[in-house]
């Protein structure tokens, strides 16, 4: 066997130069060990997560405490609810996207490709089409329950159909998701064309994501659902790490691949359904925060990438909301900001992949 000379050098070049013990500390030569210690500190996963958490806390404080028009306590009361909604959405979208990426062994597709936004749009459209625009105003709880239930049912049915029999290919699953999404979207569009223009306007507004002033009851329900989903994933974090090696290697290491993937996809559908029903579809957010998390985390382990994705999501959503309220003066919607940034990032990822 041989040793790679390059590698040996590589292992050596961060090592601080040795100093004689009795020599006085020379400030110029102290620089090297300090740089080394800084590099080491920077390479630790916990450093990265802590820094990210600090940034999110700073953004949250800026959002809560700056530019208060009247009473601080009233502003805090209203804004805390927005922050809570952001946390719920960030947790649901961040966790579900990273898990979905791991399960499907790709880093570009997100659960929205399975037609979640289309199901959401169809349910909302049908509600307005049948009951008029009052459906969106009055009984939010019923609509929320219907949406979460239908989205989870639809995706679970799809998964058991695709994974229950012999045909179990994720590519097929994704393809079916795209085709179903187009079909459902066309159906919703057809209803929107025949709708009363006033109803249509109310509906369009509802189909854009908004995290301000969420319904308190729905917020708590969604938070409980998302917390349950994340709690279910916590013991599976090491199994998720193993799944990144691919189905064959994971099976070889003793993971029941098919069963695990089914459980994971079920949790993903619950998370995405809860978030979408609460604030509306945010298509590219998952892609954005998951990939930012991979780039930022110093470790590929899910114990770090999952919380980092959630923190990225919270920071990004609050930052976007801050820009929207304070800079643009409410003259846009969150969806536009998220999809614009996320869409550009998506293009960047695809082009970078193609360039390789």
């Amino acid at each position, binding site marked *: 066997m041989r040793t790679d000379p390059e590698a040996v050098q590589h*292992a050596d070049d961060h090592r601080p130069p040795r100093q004689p013990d009795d020599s006085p500390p020379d400030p110029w030569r102290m620089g090297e060990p300090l740089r080394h210690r800084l590099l080491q500190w920077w390479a630790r996963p916990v450093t990265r997560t802590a820094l990210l958490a600090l940034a999110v806390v700073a953004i949250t404080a800026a959002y809560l405490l700056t530019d208060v028009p009247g009473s601080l306590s009233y502003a805090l009361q209203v804004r805390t609810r927005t922050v809570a909604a952001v946390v719920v959405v960030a947790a649901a979208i961040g966790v579900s996207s990273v898990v979905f990426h791991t399960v499907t062994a790709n*880093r570009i597709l997100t659960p929205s490709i399975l037609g979640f936004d289309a199901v959401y749009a169809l349910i909302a459209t049908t509600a307005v089409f049948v009951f008029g625009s009052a459906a969106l105003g009055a009984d939010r709880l019923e609509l929320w329950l219907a949406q979460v239930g239908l989205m989870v049912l639809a995706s679970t049915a799809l998964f058991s159909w695709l994974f229950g029999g012999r045909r179990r290919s994720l590519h097929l699953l994704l393809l079916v998701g795209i085709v179903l999404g187009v079909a459902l979207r066309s159906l919703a569009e057809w209803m929107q064309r025949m709708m009363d223009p006033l109803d249509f306007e109310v509906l369009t507004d509802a189909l854009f994501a908004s995290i301000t002033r969420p319904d308190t009851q729905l917020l708590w329900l969604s938070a409980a659902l998302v917390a349950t989903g994340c709690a279910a994933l916590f013991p599976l974090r090491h199994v998720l*790490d193993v799944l990144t*090696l691919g189905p*064959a290697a994971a099976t*070889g290491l003793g993971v029941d691949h098919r069963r695990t993937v089914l459980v994971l996809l079920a949790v993903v559908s619950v998370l995405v359904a809860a978030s979408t029903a609460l604030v509306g579809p945010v298509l590219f957010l998952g892609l954005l925060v998951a990939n930012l998390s991979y780039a930022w985390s110093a470790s590929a382990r899910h114990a770090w990438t999952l919380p980092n994705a959630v923190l990225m999501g919270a920071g990004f959503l609050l930052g976007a909301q801050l820009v929207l309220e304070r800079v643009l003066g409410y003259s846009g919607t969150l969806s536009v900001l998220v999809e614009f940034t996320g869409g550009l990032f998506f293009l960047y990822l695809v082009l970078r992949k193609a360039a390789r």
Partner: protein
Amino acid sequence: MIRLEGVTKRYGATAVVDDVDLDLGHRGVTALIGPNGAGKSTVFSLVGRLLSADGGRVLVEGRDVARTPSAELARCLAVLRQDNHLVARLTIRELVSFGRFPHSRGRTTAGDREHVEAALAHLDLSDLGGRYLDEVSGGQRQRAFIAMVLAQDTPYVLLDEPLNNLDLRHVKEIVALLRTMADDLGRRVVVVLHDVNVAAACADRVVAMREGRVLADGPTAQVITSEVLTQVYSTDVTVREVGGRLTASYFD
């Protein structure tokens, strides 16, 4: 032992593995050879529970692969496939640590770390442990994956064409490694090989397959012969002894 009893695997109407009875996992290195489509990789996948059999059963140490919990089998049998595409960016040490998953379920102990370091040392990777897999050569990458199955610390090790896409220097390295695993570490190595001469150089036993059936199974000298290989590959193959080694030539 790994025992196949009447194992059949069909894709549509064609049986890629046809009613095979076979014992694998004798002491030393066993090579599985045969032409493309002979069913050797399918046998590998059936034993490694990556595929389920349509008929018959596979027993590992007397336990049916289809019924034994996957986690339990993973402590007895390590499997390495040929295509190891990774999405995540891992260092060599992180990859090798995954070999301990069947034992630690992710909660790495000091004992696990010892196994990982020992596996890295055996594959001469100790200095490269901190390097990312996408920045090392193909040979080093392959060694890292073999270190992972070594760290899994199982009596049986199955490798599917571990020499694919390696140049001859790396082929020699890996062959030497397979011998070390079998001779010094007491692993029972089963390896699917494409190259008859590599099989002749490193295996103690050879199993030759053709069209889903086992044509020959025995000590290397009995299987690597002109008659058997000509029949297995349906083309003229001459086996000679060159410098004390059985060598097949097939261009004359």
